[in-house]
């Protein structure tokens, strides 16, 4: 938040800032054929998602290719893992940019956060579509949640993550919303409402910066926990050869980082082209992201190698058949094409770009990122499905082929994701608006006593509720511990929100930023009524006088 967004702003600040702000906000207005066309295409694609879901509701999960003696989970679960993975990187990029003060990537932060929100919504939608009874899945999980179940952990961490990242996103964006109130007159009421009475003083800016910095520190481990839980869903199943593995959690976190980064690169390139953001995202940003993506891809390949080696080297029989099937059996084509085409080749491309000083190519980064995305998605299906072909008892197994309904859901969710992202981009300022650099270190003023009390109470109540929930974890039918600890978490995460948003003085004059263009002061109905009320006796008297003459 602190600091100038773009180095070109350094000289002659005000004039260029004004020009820049117009460019920074030019993505907001809803105009242009391209926008409506893309909305139409994305909505049509999204309808495929709901078509697939409708088929499932009407005919049961028999419309999928899954079966009890066959693949119990299919590509939909791989898709969930993919989107949960994508969702992780947004906040990670944003938090790392903030903590390490990477000014060059600062404009990327909010776009990445929006990707997080869109992806996690898509993932939860997918979970709801994969379970057998979508109508009771959320309520039952909250109300009767069992602390031993990875599914409940996942519900807990996802809620924490969504709430935490929303607070983080909001607080980091609040000043920009306040600025938009004046810069975008057509949506004045909307941004005015969202800014929640922000006042732009050095003290307030300093407070926001501090709070958001600490929130970034807190949010990084939450992010790691979310994908770890997805690793545990697979890694804790002793009865599933090929999954049962203590390595699963870090493995999934790494996979999340890889696929998330590649999604960010693709989305960024697309938006840069269509919204003319060339000046904010120079090609070297893609190069930098590409180097990091190449590094994590290399790490992922190393993890993969280690897993496969363990799987085929003198391992228990159950494990060995699964990994043989993955590497040399019926999944060999899928696995090897994902590993060679989806990891090794893009890594080579990114490495080539990374070590060559002269090569800075956006198309190359995008192609590599697309390949990695496809490769990772495919590898996830190879994680999910093969174990079902080799149950520990020699049952006959029906082969799994994804059906039309499943592909509808999977492909539709990519459209759904893109649609959500587009809506978010069109609604909120994506690029951070520049602000005057603070020279001296301004400390936020002390909070008044009642505010300290409110914040302290929320923190204490939050911790107490979490502790109560955990303490009553053994009586889920009576105490509904998941609800208790989740409300505690939400209360706890409201603390940074309260610190920033609660007004400091109760009778403060409401200050709006000056309008960009002069507007006549609107006549408020309330003042007309009060004027009439005060003037009434005189009007009556005047009438009487008129009547007399």
């Amino acid at each position, binding site marked *: 938040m602190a600091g100038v967004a773009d180095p070109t702003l350094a000289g002659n600040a005000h004039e260029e800032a004004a020009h820049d702000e117009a460019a920074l906000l030019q993505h907001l207005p809803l105009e242009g054929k391209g926008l409506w066309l893309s909305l139409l295409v994305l909505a049509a694609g999204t309808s495929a998602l709901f078509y697939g879901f409708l088929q499932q509701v009407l*005919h*049961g*999960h*028999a419309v999928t*290719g*899954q*079966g*009890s*003696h*066959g693949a*119990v*989970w299919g590509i939909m679960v791989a898709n969930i893992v993919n989107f949960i993975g994508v969702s992780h990187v947004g906040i990670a990029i944003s938090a790392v940019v903030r903590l390490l003060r990477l000014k060059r990537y600062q404009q990327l932060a909010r776009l990445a956060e929006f990707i997080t929100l869109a992806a996690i919504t898509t993932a939860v939608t997918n979970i709801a579509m*994969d*379970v*057998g*009874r979508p109508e*009771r*899945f959320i309520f*039952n*999980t909250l109300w*009767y*949640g*069992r602390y*031993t*179940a*990875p*599914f*409940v952990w996942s*519900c807990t961490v996802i809620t924490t993550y969504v709430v935490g990242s929303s607070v983080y996103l909001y607080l980091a964006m609040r000043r920009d919303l306040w600025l938009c109130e004046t810069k975008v007159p057509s949506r004045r009421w909307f941004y005015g409402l969202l800014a929640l009475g922000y006042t732009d003083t050095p003290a307030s800016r300093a407070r926001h910066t501090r709070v958001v910095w600490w929130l970034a520190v807190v949010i990084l481990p939450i992010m790691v926990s979310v994908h770890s839980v997805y690793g545990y*869903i697979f890694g*804790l*199943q*002793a*009865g*599933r050869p090929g999954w049962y593995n203590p390595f699963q959690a870090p493995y999934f976190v790494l996979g999340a980082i890889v696929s998330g980064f590649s999604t960010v690169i693709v989305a960024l390139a697309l938006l840069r082209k269509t919204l003319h953001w060339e000046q904010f995202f120079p090609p070297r940003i893609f190069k930098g992201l590409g180097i990091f993506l190449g590094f994590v891809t290399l790490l992922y390949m190393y993890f993969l190698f280690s897993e496969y080696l363990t799987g085929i080297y003198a391992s228990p029989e159950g494990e060995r058949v699964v990994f043989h099937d993955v590497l040399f059996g019926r999944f060999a084509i899928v696995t090897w094409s994902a590993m060679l085409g989806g990891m090794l080749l893009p890594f080579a491309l990114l490495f080539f770009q990374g070590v060559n000083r002269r090569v800075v190519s956006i198309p190359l980064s995008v192609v590599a990122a697309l390949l990695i995305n496809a490769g990772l998605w495919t590898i996830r299906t190879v994680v999910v499905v093969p174990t079902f072909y080799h*149950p*520990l*008892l*020699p*049952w*006959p*197994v*029906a082969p799994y082929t994804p059906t039309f309904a499943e592909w509808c859901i999977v492909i539709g969710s990519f459209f759904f994701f893109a649609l959500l992202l587009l809506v978010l981009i069109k609604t909120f300022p994506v690029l951070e608006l520049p602000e005057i650099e603070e020279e001296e270190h301004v400390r936020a003023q002390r909070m008044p006593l009642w505010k300290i009390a409110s914040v302290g109470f929320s923190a204490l109540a939050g911790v107490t509720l979490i502790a109560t929930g955990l303490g009553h974890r053994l009586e*889920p*039918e009576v105490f509904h511990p998941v609800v208790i600890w989740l409300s505690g978490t939400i209360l706890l995460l409201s603390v940074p929100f309260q610190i920033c948003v609660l007004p400091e003085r109760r009778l403060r004059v409401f200050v709006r930023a000056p309008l960009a263009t002069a507007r006549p002061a609107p006549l408020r109905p309330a003042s007309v009524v009060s004027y009439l009320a005060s003037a009434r006796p005189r009007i009556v008297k005047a009438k009487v006088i008129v009547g007399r003459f």
Partner: protein
Amino acid sequence: MKEPTSSRRRFLGGFAQVATFVGLASGDVLATGETTPPRTHKWGMVIDLDRCTGCQACAVACRAENNVPVSGPVNTEKGRAIFWMNLLTTSEGTYPGLREEFIPTPCNHCEDPPCTKVCPVGATTQTEEGITAQIPDRCIGCRLCEVSCPYTRRYFNWSEAEWPESLREQLNPDVAVRPHGVIEKCLFCHHRIRAAKDKARAEGRSVTDAELHRLTACAQSCPAEAITFGDLNDRESEVTRQSESPRAFRLLEDVGTRP
């Protein structure tokens, strides 16, 4: 509690029994079991593989008793048919010396079931009498339990349950029909257990082993009397006696679920 001796023999050679034990970890009732009738039951089943002829009467009886829906050819081919009790068939050797072995497999009602741990909503739990129960009305259909079961003894309702007209008349009113999108499984004919206990209570006595040892539909229908059901907390019961036989073993012991 003294674990029943479970030695592993070559059950595929057909010389052994499958002993499927159920129970709670606390076994203090067992100490008093000699003198007074046990108050807490611990239901268990022993299947003598030597006696099994592979006739599948148990599977058929189970379907009829528990209102297991008819799947039809397409769903069966896709592995979506539901069997609370099924016959696992393995063959050994090649044609002239071919041996077929049959292992009847109900739910194992493990002592440490992986499925109850992963269930997010408590739809599947372990009862005090050692049955791994399933509440279809609570189930959200996430299929984590099905994934976690090493024996593949849990079944998801992939589509709405249906029966041909001729089979509708024989639906059992004691067992609820499950909707699509939930998991179902063997419950050790708990409605029969309850009926037996009610009858015994009405007559002011405790349930006897004679009532119990062929109680479940599979045990009742087995012509070879290979399946024995009963209370493992009752020292005198048939099932306890058989489970302590040196030939007894548990299925997939290395997974540690203690079936």
